[in-house]
């Protein structure tokens, strides 16, 4: 990697220090419509040939004003909107909101409800990581992982559809519990899926993890140092890849995660490969949590009684859950009426894209694509 050296260009003469050759920088717009920005993010790049000198993210192309809408909706009407805030992991997002409301209103969730939430969220985490795997492979030019990832996601989607009736935006987690109990035979199908899926992860690893081209494309590319990651409040797999063992499921437990036994995989360098491998390992851990949840699933109610005219007392609460992309936060302010005064949403992708200009200078444009994909950012979480 010794030729990685970043060539300085004299701003006056326009010559590079290396060759004495006159060169010129140029600006290029990556997005809002670009195959690898995963939605409508726009990166304004200052380039010197293939090298990126500076990167300026422009967001807001998907700013749908969810926060404003929520201020004029009753508490129960907000859960479907929450799904649209984070469509790849809408279970976690619904949970995030309900957790906040339950804490303010002191609603007690039955144990079965808590277990079902864990079960569904972990399945959803696997589904989300599969989308990551798919798009990450695609952005590196390997098309086949894309189709394999989406193929296996379909099994999980079927399970969700059976339970909640939707394929993508489930609206399953409600205030006080979950919307429905499991359908007949769900546990069996779910365990069957886990048995099928664990060896499949090895297949993915065969396809990518130790592929020499994949390694040269990802190792030591886009290193996000420990301090920078904390300073920018990076979260989830990105933070863990930088070597910080921080997982809200363990460090700020919510629901009944304290009853589960799981590992928190971390990386060492904070490079693109670490972010990839952390997610692969997390899929295995999630499989184990799903198994534990099914084996320990208690009998009883799945939802506490919540009146249709639900009014929490005045108060405010900041809740966080661990989504597939990292820490998701909601700041709910209630003034005692049936609508919240303020609902602020915080997505991990927001901070990751904020940190992007720090990593960018000196990398190649192909690396930028890999780094962006390794953050696994989705735009509604950024733009809301």
């Amino acid at each position, binding site marked *: 990697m010794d030729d990685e050296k970043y060539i300085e260009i004299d701003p006056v003469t326009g010559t590079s220090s290396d060759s004495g050759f006159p060169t010129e920088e*140029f600006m290029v717009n990556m997005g809002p419509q670009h195959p690898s920005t995963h939605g409508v993010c726009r990166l304004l790049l200052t380039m010197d040939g293939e090298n990126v000198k500076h990167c300026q993210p422009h967001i807001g192309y998907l700013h749908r004003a969810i926060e404003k809408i929520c201020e004029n909706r009753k508490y129960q009407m907000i859960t479907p909107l929450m799904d649209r805030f984070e469509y790849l992991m809408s279970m976690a997002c619904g949970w995030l909101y309900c957790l906040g409301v339950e804490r303010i209103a002191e609603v007690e969730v039955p144990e079965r409800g808590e277990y079902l939430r864990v079960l569904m969220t972990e399945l959803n985490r696997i589904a989300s990581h599969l989308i990551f795997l798919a798009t990450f492979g695609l952005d590196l030019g*390997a*098309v086949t992982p894309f189709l394999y990832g989406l193929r296996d996601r379909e099994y999980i989607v079927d399970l969700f559809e059976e339970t909640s009736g939707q394929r993508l935006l489930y609206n399953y987690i409600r205030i006080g519990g979950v919307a429905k109990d499991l359908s007949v035979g769900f546990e069996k199908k779910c365990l069957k899926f886990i048995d099928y899926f664990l060896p499949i992860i090895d297949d993915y690893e065969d*396809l990518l993890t130790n592929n020499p*081209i994949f390694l*040269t*494309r990802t190792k030591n590319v886009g290193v996000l140092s420990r301090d920078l990651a904390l300073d920018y409040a990076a979260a989830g797999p990105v933070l863990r890849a930088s070597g910080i063992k921080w997982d809200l499921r363990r460090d700020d437990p919510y629901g009944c995660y304290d009853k589960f036994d799981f590992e928190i995989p971390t990386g060492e360098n904070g490079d693109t490969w670490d972010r990839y491998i952390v997610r692969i390992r997390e899929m295995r851990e999630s499989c184990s949590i799903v198994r534990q949840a099914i084996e320990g699933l208690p009998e009883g109610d799945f939802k506490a009684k919540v009146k249709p005219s639900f009014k929490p007392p005045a108060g405010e609460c900041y809740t966080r859950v661990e989504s597939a992309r990292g820490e998701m936060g909601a700041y709910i302010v209630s003034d005692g009426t049936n609508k919240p005064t303020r609902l602020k949403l915080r997505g991990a992708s927001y901070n990751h894209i904020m940190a992007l200009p720090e990593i960018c200078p000196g990398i190649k444009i192909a690396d930028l694509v890999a780094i962006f994909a390794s953050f696994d950012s989705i735009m509604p979480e950024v733009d809301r």
Partner: protein
Amino acid sequence: MELGGLFKWIGEILQSMGLSGAWLSLVANTLVAALLLGLLAVMALFLVWWERKVSAHIQDRLGPMRTGWHGAIQTLADGLKLLQKEDITPKGVDRPVFFWAPVVVYAACFMAYVAIPWGKDLIPADLNIGILYIIAITTFTVISLLMAGWSSNNKWALLGGMRSAAQIISYEVPLTLSILGVLILAESLSMQTIVQRQEGIFNWYIWRQPLGFVIYIIAATAEANRTPFDLPEAEQELVAGFNVEYSGMKFAMFFLAEFLNMFTVSAIATTLFLGGWNGPILPSWMWFLIKTLFLVFVFMWIRWTYPRLRVDHLMEFAWKWLLPFAFLNLILTGVGYYLWDVIFG
């Protein structure tokens, strides 16, 4: 069923019609060229369809199904549709260059086919410097890609064009060097002679030039802009690379040229390393097609398995690995040939 006989027969008919000398060769050559053009079109249509089917089956899908048997005439529909598409020449492009780029790339592909030995006695023009001619002609592609990238007035296209120039010129060197080994053994530059030297499976040059074969295949993948070396049109990085501003039929020409290029490099590999049209029982042209299409399949297989290289790794690989090995191969071949000559000759 040897097609070579067919051509002789056509020649005789033409002769019996009273044509002779320059007229005969003019008419015969025009006929051959027309035939070749038709063949090329059919071949391109077939290859596009095949690529889509192969990729689909690798990826657990079906691929085109609605147009004919398993979508067999899908490419025809695509072609007809592209004919109807509006031909956009965006504002600010360098018009003549923009217009000629697809023509050049298609012409280069077409011209290379002239010297390919399709079967016994079935070669449009058996040049005594056949292989040199093909190598020279296929390099034309880079000019057209550069033209397309430069003239489009689009930064992504320019990046794509520059990448392709750097890539193809770099890989041209190990490619040619890997071929030289075969030429030393064959003692000829004529394609037909090279094939005739490889009669019988044990005389195929792949057994005596395994390193040369590997280097050739790698460099040829880069020549044909295929994954893992498809940087000029890397969809995820450069949107569509050099052809981002092309629409309609001009785009179709680039699209088809890519596939024809892949066929050309496979055909050269077949001729040089896999015994060309040599083979038992089946007619020679069929053997040629089987071997070539198998190599094409290998290229597709590679494409749908590997990720893409980064541009600096790509150059590093060409100059630091492929080139030294190609030289090594050349020296070993030369020394071995000389020693063989001294000891047994």
